[in-house]
């Protein structure tokens, strides 16, 4: 199945939850925030939120910066 991850198509194979997605991306769950279909997902429920075909997921983290160009078109 395919989801939209940070604005781009992303193939999910054998993954069902936010926690599994972060693990595959090798991201430390304590250092990111996740939005699932425009709703912020609390860290405590990464294990139980299921991702479905066509879903939109945003994964953000802190980066160096004060002011910079529009964030929606910027890659970290």
């Amino acid at each position, binding site marked *: 199945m395919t989801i939209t*991850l*940070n*604005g*781009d198509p*992303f193939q999910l194979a054998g993954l069902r939850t936010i926690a599994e997605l972060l693990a595959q*991306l*090798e*991201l*430390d769950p304590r*250092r*990111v*925030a*996740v*939005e699932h279909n425009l709703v*912020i*997902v*609390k*860290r405590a429920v990464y294990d139980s939120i299921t991702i479905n075909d066509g879903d939109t997921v*945003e*994964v*953000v*983290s*802190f*980066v*160096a*910066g*004060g*002011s*910079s*160009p*529009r*964030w*929606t078109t*910027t*890659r*970290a």
Partner: protein
Amino acid sequence: MSEDTLTIAGRKFRSRLIVGTGKYSSHPLMARAHEAAGTEMVTVAVRRVNISERSKESLLDYIDTEKYFLLPNTAGCYTADEAVRTAHLGREAGLSNWVKLEVIGDEKTLFPDNQALLDATQRLVKDGFVVLPYTNDDPVVCRKLEDSGAAAVMPLGAPIGSGLGLQNPNAIRIIKEFATIPVIVDAGVGTPSDATLAMELGVDAILMNTGIAGAQSPVGMATAMRLAVEAGRLGYLSGRIPRKRYASASSPVEGVVGR
């Protein structure tokens, strides 16, 4: 003199210099500059993780969050909706409910959009955030932000990254007079004397990024800025002499030899 601390939303800081994390040539250099600045609060941006080519190095490996309070910002947001969304993501990624709120209205000047800034401030205060809005040097807007529940106001000294120094010291002074919350000059400081001048006006703190990160020696400039902020603060607290048009001798007028 008793300990002079900066208090924002009940949280105390000994340092009145808040610094950014952008524009350093490396993370280790940034960490050394933060150390030299003696800062206790650093601001960070919130961005999408780059999925396809992710750097192994994380910014947070170079910021000791036991030592530095993290202030997520909404830099790069051009609407209240974007800023509110980014603030919520920053709260989830971070350790607190504080946000340096930026809602930019113009790409060339990076001046804030007052109306959207007020809107976003009201919404985030309602959502339980400690909101520190980056604003124009407009006393009326600053008063409205305070009335909306902002924890501090952060008027610009000059355009972001310009290094021009305070363009309107009188407005900054009036903002400070009006405000009952801390006033933090954010942006435009280029030199230590700019920082000292701002502090001499009585503002509570200064936030700067480019002035340090863009200097030829960021560590040297961070040290200079720390001293400049301290000097300006102490000068303000000590009460300057009144300005006079003519000289007044500082030596006795009697007993001058040969007269």
